[in-house]
C-alpha cells in the first residue's frame, strides 16, 4: 500500500497541455520578446515538455508534468534556468506549477524540488491567474 497522496485522477491524459487544464495559464500568454524566446529555450533545455508563463510582474511559472521523473531532469540545466530567471528575467520568484490530476506530491518531482529549496504555495497565496483547485504550486525565492 502506498502512503503517498494521490490526487484524483479523473483525467488520465498527462501530457503537459492537457495538464494545464480548463483554466489559464497557457503558453499563449508568453510575450513575444527576445528574452521570452530565450526563456522558452532555457525551459525546453531542461525538459522539452516543460512550459512557462509570466505570473504577474515579478514571478514566472514553470509548468511541469505531474508525472515528471526526476532522473530526466539535468541538474545543471535546471540551475541554469534558475539563474536565467534571476539574472535576465529579473523575477523574484520562480513558481513550479503542476496539474493536480495524477500528481503524487511525496513520491514525485515536488519532493525533489523541496530539496532544492522550493516551498509549497498555499491556495490563498496563489497568483490570481492560477487556479488553485486544479494546480499544485511551489515557489522558490531567487
Amino acid at each position, binding site marked *: 500500500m502506498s502512503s503517498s*497522496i494521490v490526487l484524483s485522477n479523473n483525467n488520465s491524459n498527462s501530457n503537459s497541455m492537457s495538464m494545464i487544464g480548463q483554466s489559464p495559464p497557457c503558453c499563449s500568454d508568453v510575450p513575444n520578446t527576445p528574452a521570452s524566446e530565450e526563456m522558452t529555450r532555457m525551459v525546453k533545455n531542461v525538459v522539452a515538455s516543460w512550459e512557462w508563463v509570466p505570473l504577474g510582474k515579478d514571478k514566472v511559472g514553470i509548468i511541469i508534468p505531474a508525472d515528471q521523473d526526476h*532522473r530526466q531532469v539535468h541538474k545543471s540545466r535546471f540551475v541554469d534556468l534558475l539563474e536565467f530567471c534571476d539574472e535576465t528575467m529579473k523575477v523574484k520568484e520562480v513558481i513550479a506549477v503542476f496539474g493536480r490530476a495524477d500528481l503524487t506530491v511525496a513520491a514525485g518531482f515536488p519532493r525533489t524540488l523541496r530539496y*532544492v*529549496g522550493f516551498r509549497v504555495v498555499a491556495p490563498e497565496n496563489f497568483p490570481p491567474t492560477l487556479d488553485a483547485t486544479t494546480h499544485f504550486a511551489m515557489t522558490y525565492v531567487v
Partner: protein
Amino acid sequence: METAMYMRREVIGDSKVNVTEQPVDVLPLARAIAEAKNMKDNDEAFMIINLDALYERFKLWKRELPQIEPFYAVKCNSDETMVQALAALGVGFDCASREEIDIVMRMGVAQERIIYANPCKTRSFIAHAEEKGVTMMTFDNAEELEKIAKHHKCPELILRIAVSDPTATCPLNLKFGAEPVKQAPELLKRAADLGIAVIGVSFHVGSGCNDPSAYRVALGHARNLFDLGLGLGHKMEIVDIGGGFPGGEHHTPFEQIAALIRSAVGEFFPEPEVRLIAEPGRFFAARPFTLVANVIAHTAVPAEKITKNACDAAATGHMYYINDGVYGSFNCILFDHAHPTGRPLFDIEGEKYPSTIWGPTCDSLDQIEDKKMMRALDVGDWLIYEVRYICRSIIDRYRTPTIDNRPDDRNLIARSLQDMGAYTCAASTTFNGFQRPTPIYVIGERTWKALGM
C-alpha cells in the same frame, strides 16, 4: 498572559521565553494555556516549543557521538529561537539557502560555523555566501565546481557523494551527490587541476534511515576519497556524515545507529586530526514542538462517507476543520509520508465516532487525519499533536529479529512516528504567508542556566 504558570520571562533574540521552576511538562502546560485562551475567546492555534527537550537531544548527541560535531540542518525547521538556543550550545549549522544563512548569521553565528549545502547553487547564491564570508560548501558536479571557482574567492569545498539507504523514510534520489567510485575521483582531480581546495567529503543517507549500515558503506567510500584527495594534494580534513538520525522513537534507535557509526569511524578514520561533522535536522527539531489547534468548524456526516463502508450508512461520523493544516504546520504530511495523530487536549470519556480532520483551507489536499476513531468534539475544542509513540507493538516486533518483518511494517512504523517540529513549518514562513501558530517557548530553570544565555 499565563504568567502564573511560569517563574519568570527571559529573552532569546526577539522571543520571550517562559522559564519554569521545574523541568517543563508539556501536557499540563498546554491545558493551562488553552483554558486561559478560552477565557479570552481566543481560539488561535499555538505551538509549545520545549527547550528542555532540545537540550535533552543535545546531551544525547554528546553522549553517543562526542567526537562528531553537529551542524544543525536549518531546512528542517528554521525557528529562530531554536537556532539561537542551538548556537548557544555550540552547534554549527548546515544552511541550504541564502535565507537560511541570513537567519543563522542574524542570530550571531560566526561564518566558520556554517556549512553551505544547497544542492543547486546559483551564481547569486554563491556570491551571497562569499559576501557573508561563508567558505565551507558542498559540491557534486564539475559545472558547480567551476562556478564556485569563478564566483567565490576562497571556497573550501566538501565533495558530496551519493550513498543512500533506499529504505529510509525519505530516501534521497541519487541526483544529489556524485557517484563515489568513478565520478567522485574525477571531481577531485578536476578540482586539483583548477587549483581549488577540497577539504573533505560529505554524504547524506536520507531522512529516517532504517539501515544504519549505509553510514558504514559511505564512510568506506569517504576513506578512499580522502586518500585519493591527499594524493592529489588536497588538504583533506573533514568528513561530514550528513543527517538521517531519528527524531523520536524509531525501530533502529539512535543509540544503535551511533554505536555503528562510532565503530565505522574507528575503522576508517582513526586519526584524531580528522574533523568529523554531521548535519542532523530531525534529530534536534522533532521533539521540542507540540501543536495545539482549535476546532473551527464541524459537520456530522453518515459514517459511510468516512469509512467508505456501506454498512456504516446509518451510523454517524464527524468531519472537523482545525486552524492549522498541510499548508502550515502539517506540511510534513505532503512530503514526508508523515501521519501525525492528534487527540483531544482534554480527556473526556465518550463514544467514539469515525472522524476526519481537515485543515482550514477547504482544499482537497488539506487533510490531516482520516478514518480516526475519536470522541465527539465541538467547535472551540482543542486537539494536541505531539511526538508520541503509537504502534509501539509494531516497533517492538520490528526489533525482534526472529519475526519475519514484512515491508508493510516499515511503512507503518515510519508513519507512526510523529515529528511535529521536523519539516513542518520549516523556513520561508516570511514570504509564502502561511499563518504560523503562536509560538510559546518554555524552558526549565536548569536548562536555562545550562544554556548560559
